[in-house]
């Protein structure tokens, strides 16, 4: 295993990074090496999103493997941001109005998810592998559980979700990264799939989720991919996985991390809001009163 030094958070993150090779490279055969154009992104006043490049090289192939008739090499890049817990709510008709009815709690949801590949991932890798490594928007490692709703207008709707989540809260969870092919398509599984698809759809609309990135080979053994990050991402650790595939087999993989940090005035504001909320509230009130008073002074008729 190749290892860098253990990464620290904060200011030292730039200096040391963790690069882990996910497979033990054999003494012969393919070797993958990757890195990022930057491992540290600062959010400051003018932050409007960022982009970085993941690049890497492949070496150690035999002449036979390099011939044009041999199956091509493909590369898949997956970036996952820090995870959060969300409620997914669905509106339903309650009398004359549309109001939130059933809601499902999704935990371990990545706040940012980006996939780039040389070809669409379904063409490169089998579904089972996509599930195992959680590659792709249909294969996220999100846990769903039911939320207790006291005023439930349509008991039948709840009953069908229970078929997929037959346990009691709060300990029950259900993983729905992909319905097993052998399982029957129950109405409950269908309903849950709707929620899962809504989650992906809504987060994609915010540009937090994307699976349309491309990996290009600029040389026969050198590839790169652009990762674009919207301004709405949270601070934290962003894990980047790079996979090399040939003939639907995973040959090698690497994992590295980059950090996003709120710094400067905005960082201080954010920290204060989290750590000293009462003082922060008072500050907000004070600013408002002063602003109001000053503006009145400025506009007073002479």
């Amino acid at each position: 295993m190749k290892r860098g030094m253990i990464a620290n958070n904060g200011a030292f993150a730039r200096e040391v990074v963790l690069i882990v090779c996910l497979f033990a490279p054999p003494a012969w055969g393919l070797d993958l090496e990757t890195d990022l154009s930057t491992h540290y992104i600062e959010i400051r006043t003018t932050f409007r999103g960022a982009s970085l490049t993941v690049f890497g090289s492949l070496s150690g192939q035999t002449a036979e493997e390099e011939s044009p008739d041999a199956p091509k090499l493909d590369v898949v890049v997956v970036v996952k941001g820090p995870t959060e817990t969300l409620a997914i709510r669905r509106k339903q008709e309650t009398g004359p109005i549309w109001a939130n009815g059933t809601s499902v709690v999704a935990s371990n949801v990545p706040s940012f998810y980006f996939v780039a590949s040389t070809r669409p991932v379904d063409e490169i890798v089998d579904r089972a592998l996509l599930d195992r490594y959680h590659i792709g928007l249909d294969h996220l490692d999100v846990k769903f559980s039911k939320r207790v709703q006291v005023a439930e207008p349509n008991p039948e709707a709840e009953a069908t979700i229970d078929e997929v989540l037959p346990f009691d809260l709060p300990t029950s969870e259900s993983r729905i990264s992909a319905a097993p092919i052998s399982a029957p398509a129950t109405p409950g599984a269908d309903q849950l799939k709707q929620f899962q698809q809504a989650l992906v759809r809504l987060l994609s609309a915010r540009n937090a989720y994307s699976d349309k990135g491309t990996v290009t080979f600029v040389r026969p053994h050198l590839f790169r991919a652009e990762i674009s990050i919207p301004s709405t991402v949270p601070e934290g650790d962003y894990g980047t996985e790079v996979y090399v595939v040939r003939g639907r087999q995973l040959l090698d993989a690497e994992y590295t991390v980059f950090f996003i940090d709120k710094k400067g005035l905005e960082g201080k504001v954010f920290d204060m809001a989290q750590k000293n909320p009462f003082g922060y509230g008072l500050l907000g009130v004070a600013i408002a009163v002063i602003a109001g008073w000053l503006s009145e002074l400025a506009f007073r008729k002479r």
Partner: protein
Amino acid sequence: MLIYLPIAEISFNVFLLLGIGAAVGFLSGMFGVGGGFLMTPLLIFNGIPAAVAVSTGANQILASNVSGALAHWRRRAVDLKMGTLLLSGGILGSFLGVFTFQYLRKLGIIDVVISLAYVVMMGTIGSLMLYESARAILRARGSAPSARVGAHHSWLHGLPFKLRFPKSRLYISAIPPVMLGVFAGLLAAIMGVSGGFFLVPAMIYILRMPTNVVVGTSLFQGIFLMTTTTILQSTANKTVDIVLALFLMVGGVVGAQVGAAVAQKVRGDYLRAILAVIVLAVGVRLAFDLTIKPHELFSLDLLKRPVR
């Protein structure tokens, strides 16, 4: 020019922020309504998370209220005595409202209650005001002299604890203002607004205060309600974004000054009519949103922030 908002976690156009703040501030200075019911949808429409929009809106409304109240005060158009009674009821009402809010949340019907509350309040108040002010305008155009709203007294005025309110030229019981304040505080806590859109018509039609004092007094009372809300929201939910609030405030206080100046020059009945139309329009729009099938049935709610 874009600026990053740390709590909303989005980079935003500075001029758009100033514009939204100014528009809402103008309404605040002119009519005494805090503008919360307009500010929140405007911000959400532009990508600010709903919780941040509501909480930060309270902070900004506070600034506009201070600015507008001071402006009206300079023109001797604030009844401090009445305002104090209103706000003492308001603080009590907002505490009651917070508990009611939590109770409704547990029942799972808080969203429906809030939306319905908006529609009912806006619809009834808007219609009543429009009817009354239209009558007043027509009467003024006719040969008969327009009856001043403040001329009539109702049984409410005769309740015990009567006090003199020189600014409003009233001698009425202290109980109605306090009760109105409590209800306004309740509404403010549940619906996330400053309560002005209820208090302004209530002061005009129930307390029979002269229109030119009503706006300033409503703004004065709003200052204390919004202070409570800002501190509560930042402590409990950590959803107040001071950077966002700052830019909204700058636009807002300027707008409030302009609004206050314009308000003094417009006749009472015209003011009431315009306000009635605005309130009705918002109510109709909300009712529409509630009853037709939305494009997107699903929505997301952040329960736990990303773990650092």
